[in-house]
């Protein structure tokens, strides 16, 4: 195993009874890299994402993280509490629906602060200041810090979810259709934000999406999934511009020109 890798999943399989969720999927990510996972709905993208984040138990395979202290952890071998801690410090997960990733009954500031408290921050003034800072970063008016996310628009909620996830400075962020439910102008805003944060903070990301225009702008490499299998993987523009597999060709030729 290479020493500079950040994250590696090898031969991941997940079955739902007789049905395949994903089968024999391997991938690896270096610090600062963005990997896109594309495919139509039902292809196993979200299953794979949830497996490698540790939300879903895998049936076969191993998941390794080279953590902050350069220790290589195997997700399938560590305890549940340890995994939860890793999920909140080294990793982050942005859901398609911000309601799944936010606590709707506490304030925007509280949503960000809660994550800080979970990793040991105690000074209230400091937490509030960091939260305000992050609201600014994701372009939410700081005067909204005490408002509940239920009073926010969908795009603002999504940006708040991103702030909540990034405040602990994760090194790898998993995103499930992060711009999925948003209208096009808000999507652009979030894409721009994600791109800058990924570069400024050197965060690596795995992005699941069915939107090929989104991956083209964000991803370095992509993998294409069909029926739970990876059918093609490679350089982002190469897979989109010269797909080699029958199904990838269909996928690419089925979208409007982007």
């Amino acid at each position, binding site marked *: 195993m290479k020493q500079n890798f950040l994250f590696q999943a090898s031969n991941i399989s997940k079955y739902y009874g007789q049905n395949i969720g994903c089968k024999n999927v391997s991938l690896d990510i*270096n610090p600062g890299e963005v990997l896109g996972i594309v495919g139509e709905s039902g292809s196993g993208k979200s299953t794979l994402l949830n497996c490698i984040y540790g939300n879903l138990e895998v049936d076969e395979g191993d998941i390794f993280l080279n953590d902050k202290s350069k220790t290589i952890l195997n997700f399938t071998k560590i305890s549940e509490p340890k995994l939860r801690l890793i999920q909140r410090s080294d990793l982050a997960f942005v859901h398609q629906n911000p309601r799944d990733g936010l606590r709707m009954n506490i304030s925007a500031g509280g949503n960000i602060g809660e994550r800080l408290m979970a990793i040991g921050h105690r000074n209230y003034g400091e937490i509030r200041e960091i939260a305000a800072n992050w609201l600014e970063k994701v372009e939410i008016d700081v005067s909204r810090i005490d408002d509940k996310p239920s009073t926010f628009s969908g795009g603002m909620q999504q940006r708040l979810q991103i702030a909540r996830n990034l405040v602990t400075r994760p090194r790898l962020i998993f995103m499930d259709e992060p711009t999925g439910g948003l209208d096009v*102008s808000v999507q*652009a*805003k979030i*894409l*721009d934000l994600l*791109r800058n944060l990924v*570069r400024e903070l050197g965060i690596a990301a795995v992005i699941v999406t069915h939107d090929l225009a989104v991956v*083209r*702008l964000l991803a*370095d*490499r992509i993998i294409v999934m069909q029926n739970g299998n990876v059918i093609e993987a*490679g*350089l982002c*523009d*190469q897979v989109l*511009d*010269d797909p*080699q597999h*029958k199904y990838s*060709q*269909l996928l690419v*030729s089925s979208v409007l020109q982007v």
Partner: protein
Amino acid sequence: MIQIKNLNKSFQLYNQNDTNINVFKNINFRVNKGEVVALTGNSGTGKSTLLKLIYGSYVISKGDVLISDINIRKSSPRDILTLRKNKLGYVSQFLRVVPRVPTIDVVIEPLLEIGCEKKIALKKAQEILERLNIPKNLWNLSPLTFSGGEQQRVNIARGFIHNYPYLLLDEPTASLDQNNKNVVLDLIEKAKLNGSAIIGIFHDETARNKVATREVNLENL
């Protein structure tokens, strides 16, 4: 040096009656430091395809592309990304950027990617945007709202802000007026003098005659 050895490209289109399109066969040539090779030939002879094969956007069917000692066909996606970041530039006819991002940020991006300090990158971007006659009041706007010629010049600014030792140019002067065309030709000339190895497609014959040191006609190969 860029070397093209016995290069073949065909496209297998599975969803269109399994059509196999042969673009070209056995292309051989090399481009030395300080040379500008102009690709010529009618539409459909594979000029843009060849540039995309060199850049790694298309998969090589047979043969090799060598950039210095790096074999593109055998390189991993990561190796190709590193090569593009540091050494291999590409200016296409189309601008593809995240909506809403200001022009100046689009232009400095290649420099930030290689770890250049933002202050220095901004200064260089200002210089090149001025040189390409992009009005200052547009720098903080997204180039997606610009005219075709302005977008192309933003693309050129991005491609020339870093001194790439290898440069691929796909019709860099296509939609420019004479004045801006000359600015771009000067930039190419300067890169050539700096020792870059350049391959370009120039439909405009006067532009081609001005900068190209040699022509490679894909129809005669």
